[in-house]
């Protein structure tokens, strides 16, 4: 079975909610829609206080290159457009909606039937994806229409679909692959058409045997889509690692996947593309996993953006007594949150509730130079060195040691027997060196 070649670790997969079918969460009474749900500049509101909006109506327009449209996930009245406090305690401009009923825009096809035929031109497909505000749902939230518009000099050869879900605990992609495989395949075909490739490879890790079987069956009816079972190996869902695992090519330092002819999309993004192109439904919801070792009812939920995190936790049986940490996303790359009054966005792939006993890092000891961080690094960097160079503020040397290649997967800290804060320092070094590089480029 295939996997990527350098480094990586093997955390226990802990897929507690793998057998729980996707449920839909009841609508909240009030919703807060953050205007920054993607990398790039926040979207600009196109509605005003007091307006009545319907589900799927455009409420904020993409502003600038890396931005994405935002549509209302609810019908109701705009209460105000104001700052809200996000999950991490930062203020962020948001639209507050008082939810009234559930009235959808008339052009959205809400029926359950599957629409297979798509006769649109590539440019029209990409335009619809952009209009629908679709961003990469694997975690990076990079606007999808930009990713599907490669520079004219590059030629895409293969579309790689990320069904890896290598983060422990998370199961939302797994469930989506089991319950909406047909739609995902149509989404894949649509993207293939949009970027003009005739080959797609779906990478799925072997802890999802049922999804691999299911996809293999359906693939017999879809020309050009291959299923590639992969060994369990974190961080296989990383774009560069997945390309290496599936087609054996390594994206050079500083380059984009298109440099080796690859375009990568997540299965959840493919599903969103299907809904946008075939059913006219903009991106207003996603499936997320709410889970944790002591959570009463770990499950997968289809949640509209702007739902308060408290509602999701209540649906999972409430916060356990011993809760010590709540993480948005998976345990390897997710961010610990402090504000449960905040709401979900396009980037919320899961809520992981950790008990006290698993919440704190162990005490830091001296580096014993065991080299386990070097072995674990999937980019073949030397985390111990990046850490000590950052401590000593040696920015030029850090750039030479390719600190900007770090994908922040956390393998180094995960495997350090001395529990040294390797990645914390690397992030600091990366931010500083990144700033120096941007300044230098701006002067040119």
């Amino acid at each position, binding site marked *: 079975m295939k996997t990527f070649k350098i480094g990586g670790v093997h955390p226990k997969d802990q897929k507690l909610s793998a057998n729980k079918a996707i449920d839909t969460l009841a609508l909240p009474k009030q919703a807060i829609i953050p205007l920054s749900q993607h990398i790039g500049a926040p979207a600009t509101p196109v509605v005003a206080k007091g307006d009545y909006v319907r589900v799927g109506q455009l409420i904020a327009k993409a502003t600038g290159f890396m931005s994405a449209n935002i549509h209302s996930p609810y019908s109701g009245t705009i209460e105000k457009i104001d700052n809200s406090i996000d999950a991490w305690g930062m203020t962020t401009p948001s639209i507050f909606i008082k939810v009234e009923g559930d009235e959808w825009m008339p052009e959205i096809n809400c029926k359950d039937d599957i629409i297979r035929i798509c006769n649109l031109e590539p440019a029209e497909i990409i335009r619809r994806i952009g209009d629908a505000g679709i961003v990469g749902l694997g975690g990076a939230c990079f606007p999808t229409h930009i990713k599907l518009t490669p520079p004219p000099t590059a030629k895409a050869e293969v579309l790689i679909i990320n069904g890896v879900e290598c983060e422990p605990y998370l199961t939302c992609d797994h469930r989506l692959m089991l319950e909406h495989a047909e739609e995902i395949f149509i989404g894949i075909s649509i993207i293939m058409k949009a970027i003009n490739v005739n080959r797609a490879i779906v990478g799925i890790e072997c802890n999802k045997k049922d999804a691999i079987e299911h996809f293999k069956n359906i693939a017999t009816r879809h020309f050009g889509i291959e299923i590639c079972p992969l060994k369990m190996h974190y961080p296989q869902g990383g774009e560069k690692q997945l390309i290496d695992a599936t087609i054996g090519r390594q994206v050079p330092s500083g380059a984009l996947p298109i440099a080796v002819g690859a375009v990568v999309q997540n299965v959840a993004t493919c599903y969103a593309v299907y809904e946008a192109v075939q059913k006219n439904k903009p991106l207003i919801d996603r499936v997320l996993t709410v889970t944790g070792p002591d959570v009463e009812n770990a499950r997968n939920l289809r949640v509209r953006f702007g739902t308060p995190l408290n509602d999701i936790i209540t649906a999972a049986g409430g916060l356990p007594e011993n809760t010590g940490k709540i993480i948005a996303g998976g345990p390897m790359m997710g961010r610990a949150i402090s504000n449960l009054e905040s709401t979900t966005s396009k980037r919320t792939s899961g809520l992981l509730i950790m008990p006290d006993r698993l919440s704190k890092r162990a005490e830091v*000891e001296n580096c014993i130079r065991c080299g386990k961080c070097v072995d674990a690094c999937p980019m073949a960097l030397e985390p111990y060195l990046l850490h000590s160079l950052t401590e000593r503020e040696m920015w030029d040397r850090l750039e030479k040691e390719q600190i900007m290649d770090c994908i922040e997967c956390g393998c180094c800290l995960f495997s350090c027997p001395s529990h040294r804060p390797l990645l914390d320092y690397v992030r600091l070094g990366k931010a500083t060196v990144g700033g120096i590089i941007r300044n230098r480029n701006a002067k040119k």
Partner: protein
Amino acid sequence: MLTLSPAPHIHNGDSVRKNMLNVVIAMLPAYFGSLYYFGFGALCVTLISIVSCLLFEFLIQKFILKGKNTLGNMSALVTGMLLAFNLPSNLPWWIVIIGALVAIGVGKMTFGGLGNNPFNPALVGRVFLLISFPAQMTTWPRPIAMNLDFNYFDATTGATTLSMLKGGFGEMPSLTQMLFGEMGGSLGEVSAIALILGLIYLLVTKTITWHIPVSILVTVFAMTGIFYFVDPTTYANPLVHILSGGLLLGAIFMATDYVTSPMTHKGQLIYGFGIGLITCVIRLWGAYPEGMSFAILIMNAATPLIDNYVKPTRFGAKEKGGKK
């Protein structure tokens, strides 16, 4: 109260203590071997060495460095055992204590404790003793199976295989005897089989990787093999070199010390090659019959240099257009 900390939020459960305990467990077969052949002497020397190493680390940490107690990470235990493994089993108790003081005091704590020492502490101790007490450090008790003699100071002594080779005297042990450890030598180095069992344990538990021991053994085998092939009357069979002296002990337990060996696999291969090469040069043409300790210490000194120049092949470097 919610904890806020950056990712990753989970850990694989590894710790310094676990790694050190694995090394101790891996040393146990060789230790039982030496108890079998050297009896009470092996027991006493090891106990004295371990207790003094622990005590010196505790005292220095408490009264000189004024830091937290570091005995819990078990590294002083490993140093104590390794030092004992490098000593003859009839060594007077006070010399063992001096060795422990030099190993822990000079070799390790001077530099700030575990992780900061440039040289393997146990080897610093051993080489200090070898130079300061050459007579006591080179009289080796003869191995006696099921040794129950409590008067271990007065054991009959003999030469090691390598000094017989160097001096051209004495009756060489057979390869089988060498494999099981029925030969003269320091207490932990004699039984090849027991040491290899330890190596397998270290590899299976992923405490170390194969790169350092294998590169040392291959280099020594190849180099002594070439000379044996050219002139078998002057030079010994390469298997004799592999099985005798401190080669296996050094390759498996001393050279693989995390702190003093290179971080990258490529660097580890160079380091192992260097140790093998220097060992052969000393053994074949040097003044000492055995060169393993010196070879390791010399390559310890080269480790920062190796780490500075030998880099892993970065992701994407081999792809067309990648950074070389």
